[in-house]
């Protein structure tokens, strides 16, 4: 590939990007040029705009899933609740879980990965910008398709895990599970293309000098996360294709009356489902690992341990799936093996928690809103991790599984862990993304209110579960002793909703206030990683020039140097180190494209066709295939775009550039002074 090839001095280095102004392969299409207005968003291939769209869409679905959760909690307010029917409750809890996992937590991770990771490694964009846009639009169409089931006969009613044979047509005849199944198949396409894209980006597009062990921890965790996705999603996709064949064409993969084993579904689902858990939490771990050092005023404690424990979690996460199946009738040897692997995955997780604590230890802690949320993650995740260890003890799990104890456990992991980390990330990076700071006082109030409400909601569920309350029950009777803690949990859930409302209010309030304030500094937190060198909001070209990296926390050490006895002294003013906004005209950027959104729109049309009439599938298929052809045939670039390569600072130190130019072919040219120029560029 052309990623690191030698570039001639002439404009347009891309292999297919000859400066041929008449180049119109299909004879008609040119690439869109809009840089403002809604068209620019629909056709954008800019990783930052795509990241923002991921985040905004995920927050929209977060509200949808949150309303579903509030309805569930309202139904459980008192014994024999009458707000929801059994059927509606089952649909709501299924869609709550599915929405929160696939349409909220994973995409928020994708939002941060999209926006931040290229900035953290000093890239101009991701490796395949159009595929990046395609991933986003596919995710959006999957989410809309999935939720359109509410208006077309009701949502899925089998739980987010949809165990066979209850997921068969015999037991769930409505189209709900078909929407679930096809919707997640489409979402899987988005995840998989995104994973390939981001892995290639991390491995190939780092700035000069940015060796793997100089990458910010968030970028590391993104890399691990995307590898988990790359291998986990295909397993789910395989299972779901089998289920689709079963439901639509009587293929009998999971039909017990035809001799199938329903445990096959469970194995496939959890081989996907447990790595899934780690790929949801690791991006938040990455964010916190970058935020804690900033506000502790000292480097992350044990960078290699933090990195490798994340990698270890990524590997070990593949060997624990059957702990979801301790009571399914797998043999005692299997139970023992998976109990032990599950216990020992607590070791790398514990290393992370202790390293974060050691990062704070001896620092000068600044309790900003992002710092508070980050500490919140450390503490709340500790609770979730410990309850996880108690569930790894298989005999204990036979009492705990499928009770509210488990509901408490994974909400401490996914809300107290992942979502607190995301909130930390929102408050930390808001000014970088949108050019104005979120109000700190409101942010801290947001934190304390959320911490209070979160614990009120989910802490009582530990006891509810241990005292016998099953999961997924739409009603319970008085006399079981469940009333008190269910009420506390329901009250907590509504306060939790108000803390989210406070966050949304803060967004608009701070934006209104920001008009009267001076422009925000590029580096308001005195941060450590190079994304803070860019102006806020980040210009389309990211860096001008691309910095050359000489160590972990490179940006920090442009501002500060260490004396011989380890004391820190300022060596440069922040204003002199951060980059000024340039016109960027000399920087080549990939052109927008219509085709990602066209292909993504075709996929749900195929899915609707599978449910209603195959003719519709044909139309959808034509759109998809036509879109792919248009994609392949559209001109690679705007030939008018200015382009040259003088975008590196003359004084940039490229001493250790040899590790930077990441892979293979480029190594031999790395010593060359011009190695800094060999940084990869998006391939259109």
């Amino acid at each position, binding site marked *: 590939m052309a990623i690191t090839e030698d570039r001639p001095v002439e404009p347009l280095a891309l292999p297919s990007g000859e400066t041929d102004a008449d180049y119109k392969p299909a004879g008609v299409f040119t690439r869109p040029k809009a840089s403002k207005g809604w068209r620019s968003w629909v056709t954008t291939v800019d990783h930052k705009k795509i990241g923002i769209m991921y985040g905004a869409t995920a927050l929209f679905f977060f509200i949808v899933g949150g309303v579903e959760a509030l309805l569930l909690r309202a139904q459980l307010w008192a014994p024999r609740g009458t707000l929801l029917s059994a059927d509606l409750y089952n649909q709501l809890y299924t869609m709550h879980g599915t929405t929160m996992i696939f349409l909220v937590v994973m995409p928020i991770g994708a939002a941060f990965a999209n926006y931040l990771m290229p900035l953290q490694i000093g890239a101009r964009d991701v490796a395949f910008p159009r595929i990046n846009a395609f991933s986003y639009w596919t995710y959006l169409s999957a989410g809309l398709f999935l939720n359109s089931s509410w208006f077309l006969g009701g949502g899925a009613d089998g739980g987010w895990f949809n165990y066979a044979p209850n997921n068969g047509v015999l037991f769930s005849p409505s189209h709900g599970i078909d929407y679930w199944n096809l919707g997640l198949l489409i979402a899987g396409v988005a995840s998989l293309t995104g994973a390939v894209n981001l892995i290639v980006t991390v491995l190939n597009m780092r700035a000069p000098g940015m060796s793997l062990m100089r990458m910010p921890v968030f970028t590391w965790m993104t890399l691990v996360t995307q590898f988990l996705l790359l291998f986990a999603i295909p397993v789910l996709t395989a299972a779901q294709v089998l289920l689709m064949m079963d439901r639509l064409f009587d293929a009998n993969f999971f039909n017990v009356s035809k001799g199938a084993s329903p445990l096959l579904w469970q194995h496939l689902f959890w081989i996907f489902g447990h790595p899934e858990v780690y790929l949801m939490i690791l991006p938040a771990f990455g964010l916190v690992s970058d935020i804690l050092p900033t506000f502790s005023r000292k480097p992350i404690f*044990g960078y290699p341990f933090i990195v490798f424990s994340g990698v270890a979690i990524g590997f070990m996460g593949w060997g624990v799936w059957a702990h979801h199946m301790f009571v399914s009738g797998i043999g005692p040897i299997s139970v023992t093996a998976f109990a032990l692997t599950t216990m020992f995955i607590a070791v790398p997780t514990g*290393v992370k928690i202790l390293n974060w604590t050691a990062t704070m*230890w001896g620092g000068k802690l600044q309790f900003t809103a992002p710092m508070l949320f980050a500490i919140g993650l450390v503490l709340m995740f500790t609770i979730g991790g410990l309850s996880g260890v108690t569930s790894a003890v298989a*005999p204990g799990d*036979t009492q705990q599984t499928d009770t509210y104890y488990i509901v408490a456990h994974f909400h401490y992991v996914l809300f107290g862990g992942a979502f607190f980390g995301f909130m930390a990330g929102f408050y930390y990076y808001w000014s970088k993304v949108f050019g104005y700071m979120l109000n700190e006082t409101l942010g801290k109030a947001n934190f304390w209110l959320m911490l*209070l409400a979160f614990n009120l909601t989910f802490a009582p569920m530990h006891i509810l579960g241990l005292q016998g309350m099953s*999961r997924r029950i*739409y009603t319970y009777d008085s*006399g079981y002793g469940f009333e008190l803690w269910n009420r506390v949990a329901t009250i907590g859930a509504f306060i939790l909703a108000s803390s989210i409302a406070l966050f949304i209010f803060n967004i608009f309030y701070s934006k209104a206030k920001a008009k009267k304030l001076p422009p925000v500094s590029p580096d308001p937190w005195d941060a450590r990683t190079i994304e803070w060198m860019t102006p806020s909001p980040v210009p389309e070209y990211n860096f001008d020039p691309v910095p050359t990296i000489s160590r972990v926390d490179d940006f920090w050490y442009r501002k500060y140097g260490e004396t011989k006895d380890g004391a820190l002294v300022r060596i440069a003013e922040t204003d002199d180190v951060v980059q000024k906004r340039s016109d960027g005209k000399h920087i080549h950027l990939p052109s927008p494209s219509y085709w990602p959104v066209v292909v993504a729109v075709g996929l749900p049309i195929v899915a609707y066709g599978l449910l209603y009439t195959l003719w519709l599938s044909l139309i959808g298929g034509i759109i998809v295939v036509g879109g792919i052809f248009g994609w392949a045939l559209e001109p690679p670039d705007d030939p008018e775009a200015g382009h040259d390569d003088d975008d590196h600072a003359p004084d940039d130190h490229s001493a250790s550039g040899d590790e930077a130019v990441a892979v293979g072919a480029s190594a031999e040219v790395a010593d060359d002074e011009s190695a800094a120029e060999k940084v990869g560029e998006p391939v259109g």
Partner: protein
Amino acid sequence: MPRRSVALRVLAVVTVAVVTLLFVVLILDAFRNDGKPLTTLRPEGPSSQSIQNLMAPVFFVALLVGIGVFGVVFYAAWKFRQRGTDDPEQFPDQVHGRTGLEIGWTILPALILAGVAVATVMTIIDLEKRAPDAIRVEVYGQQWWWGYKYDLNNDGVFDIETATEMVIPVGREVDLKVTSNDVIHSFWIPGLNGKKDAVPGQRNDLKVEADIEGVFLGQCTEFCGLSHANMRMLVRSVSADTFDQWAANQQTKAVEPTGAQAKEGLTLFKAQCAQCHIINGIDDGPDRPPVPLVSGIAPNLTHFMTRGTFAGSIFNLYSPQGDPILGNPELTANPGDPGATLVGGPVDTTKVNRAVLEAWLRNSPAMKPAYAQGGRGMPNLGLSEAQIDQLVAYLETLY
């Protein structure tokens, strides 16, 4: 740094205080298990006891570790906070890590976990042991109730078939084979043992044994469709003598009723109910057509009145005070107590929870969600009030 806000400070203090109090109360509440019949924290049998013996120290260690981490983080947050008087350009020691420390806190949790692992494996082995004199019972789940088949003399032939409630002798092990006739369910009597999934096509092992006489409640815990919440079960632990009497009575067949109304009821039963429900001696002949339900079976009603509950154990069959009891077996001192009827004594009709039984016959889908039109659950039969009275009169002869 933004200026300090009093309201913010109050909110922070309130949050820390409320959350701390909440956790203290929750931990204390774990020791209050009266009036919580489904609790896992008060074992009443050897299996649940060995789980408890394993878990109590695990919970304790987890609590200590949690308190330790919280303590260190809070201490660090307090001790190392940046004070208003500090010079922001004064930096703390730039510690990048200490390998020895890192290796230490990699090994320490691994050692703690190794200890937990040894205890776990021992308990798994313990729970797999089986007593030679155990009673063998096949438990089958279907949407949305449980059935039990007893093989009393271990000859491979089932001697008793009953539903909803399982009767076991106190102090004697009962070996269960748990299976399902439709989707996956999970059999769980928290007081006696952990749960085991009922998987169609599998016969999963589980043992239960009660140390005391009494009633143990359970709840299906694997999501099994619409009425998952309404799929409960109940185990009655009785003395060995009572068990023998109960077992002997259960093996008898139903006889033709004598009362005029009950006779009408039997005719009605044969016309309306016998398609799905079996009563031994009435409609269990070799030529009976298969049950048209997805699960292929409906509760066997031969000794219906010997049970204290019905419809997946969600309604009481008896109401000692004479007032109808809707749901919740625990609302009475002795849940759904059939009294002497348990072992075949005549039914005290004044104590039958008649209003609820009639309501069930009037329109069962309104009482318990089901998909009767899809062959899952009991449909609304459209019975007249007179017919309902006749059916109840007949049902009251089934003991």
